[in-house]
C-alpha cells in the first residue's frame, strides 16, 4: 500500500475523526489509524529493531488508543499523546523481552537450476531492495541505535529520526527539558563512541 507521508496532518479533520470515534464511529477511527500507522510502525521499528516486533507493537498501540481514547484531553497534540502510548508500549516490550531480535538472518540457497541466491526470511530480514539501498553507515547507525540503552534510544529516535522538538519530547516522556537535553547529549555521545570505528564512513558518505 503506497503511502505519502504528510508532514502536516490536517488537524481539522483529525479532531473530527477523534470526536466521531468517541461516538462509536469505527470508520472515523480507521481514518485515525490510517493517519498514523506508518509513523507509529516506524517509531516502533527503530525502538525494537525488527519489523515483526514493530508490527506487534503497532497493533498494541492502536488497541490502546481505541480503549483509552476518552482519556485524551486535548491538552497536548494528539500525535504527542499517541507517541506517549507508543513509547510506553515499546518500553514495556523491551523490559519484558530484554533481548532484541534484530534482522540478521539470511540463508544461502540454491534453486533447481543451480543458481545461488539469498533467501531472506521474510519476517526478520531486510528485503533485497532494502539491503541494496542501505549503505554501511546506515547499517552501522541502526546497529548502534539498538545498542543504546532504551531510555537513550527513545529520545534519540524521537529527536533525530522523528524530528520532534525538545518540548514535544518533554511532553511525551514527562521529563523536563533540561533532562531531555542532557539525555540527548549523553545518547549522542554514546552513539559517537559506538560508531568511532566507522567515523570515516560517516564523514565521507
Amino acid at each position, binding site marked *: 500500500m503506497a503511502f505519502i507521508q504528510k508532514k502536516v496532518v490536517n488537524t481539522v479533520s483529525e479532531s473530527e475523526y477523534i470526536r466521531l470515534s468517541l461516538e462509536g464511529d*469505527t470508520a472515523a477511527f480507521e481514518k485515525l489509524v490510517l493517519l498514523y500507522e506508518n509513523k507509529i*510502525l516506524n517509531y516502533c521499528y527503530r525502538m525494537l529493531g525488527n519489523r515483526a516486533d514493530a508490527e506487534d507493537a503497532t*497493533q498494541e498501540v492502536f*488497541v490502546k488508543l481505541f480503549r483509552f481514547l476518552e482519556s485524551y484531553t486535548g491538552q497536548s497534540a494528539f500525535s504527542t499523546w499517541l507517541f506517549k502510548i507508543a513509547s510506553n508500549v515499546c518500553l514495556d516490550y523491551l523490559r519484558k523481552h530484554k533481548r532484541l531480535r534484530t534482522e540478521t538472518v539470511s540463508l544461502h540457497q540454491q534453486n533447481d537450476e543451480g543458481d545461488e541466491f539469498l533467501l531472506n526470511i521474510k519476517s526478520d530480514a531486510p528485503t533485497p531492495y532494502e539491503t541494496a539501498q542501505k549503505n554501511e553507515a546506515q547499517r552501522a547507525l541502526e546497529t548502534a541505535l539498538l545498542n543504546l540503552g532504551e531510555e537513550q534510544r527513545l529520545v534519540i529516535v524521537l529527536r533525530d529520526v522523528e524530528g520532534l522538538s525538545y518540548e514535544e519530547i518533554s511532553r511525551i516522556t514527562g521529563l523536563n527539558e533540561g533532562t531531555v537535553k542532557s539525555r540527548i547529549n549523553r545518547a549522542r555521545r554514546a552513539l559517537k563512541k559506538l560508531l568511532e570505528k566507522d567515523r570515516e564512513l560517516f564523514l565521507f558518505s
Partner: protein
Amino acid sequence: MKKDCELIQNQLSSYIDGMLTVEESETVRKHLAVCSECQKEHDFMCAIVKKAKDLPVICADDALHKAIMQRVLQTKKPVVKRFGGRKLWQTASALVGAAAVLVISIISFNSLPSHPDLTIENPAMVTPVTDASANGKPTGEVTPKTRALPAQETTVTAQTTPEEPVYEEPSSYARTPRNIEAEEKTLIFYFAPDAVLEAAEKLSAYTKDGEGYLIPTEELDAVLVQLKAQNGYLRNEGEFAEQTEKTNVKLVLKAE
C-alpha cells in the same frame, strides 16, 4: 585547552540543536574556529544526526492495517447503562441470532465493575463501538448449513473461583475495588454438527463451568487456532474479551 575541549564537547549536542543561549553558542563557535579536534567531533556528531534523519522509513502494508483494525474491533469497551435496563456487552461485529449455533461464550473475569448503574462521569465507561459492518470475522467463511438442527449443548456445572486481576490503567480511570462478576460475552463459533464433539474433545482437559469450559488466557490463542483449523469449523462471530492478566475465558460449544 584540554579542559575547555571537554566542556565544549559536552555542549556540542545542544549547540547543534540550537538549544544553547546566545552567549553559550558564541563561546562554542569561537572555540570550534580555533580547535580542529573539537571541530572534528562536531562534524562527526552532525553527520550522525543527519544520517539518523535520513534513515529509511518503513511503511505499513495492507496486511498490517487489516490486522490492526481486526484487533481494534475485537476490543471490548465497557458499556454504561444510560436508559435503564442492563445493557449487555456489545460486540463490534454483527450478532446473528440462530437457534442452534456453535457458541463460544467468553466470560472474562476482569476488573471492570459490572454494576448496572454506572454513570457517565466515570470516564472508563463509555458506549462501545458497534458497527454492523465491522470486520471481526475471520476469512474463509463457509455458509452455515441448515439451522434446523437442534443444539447439542454440553452442559456442565462447577464454578471455579475467579482470580482478581490487577489492572494498571491510566490515572483518569477511577477503579473502585470490586467483587469480580463474570461478564458474559458471546463469541459464536459455528461448527458442523458432526464436528462439535471433536471440538468438545479438544476442550475436555479444561475445567467446566456451566455451559462452557474455562480456558486460561495464555492458552486461549492456541485453543482458538486449533478450533478454527478443525474440519467442520464454519465461522465465528463476536469478540474476544480484553486480554488482561489472570483472566479466564469460558468457551461454550454448540452445534449448527
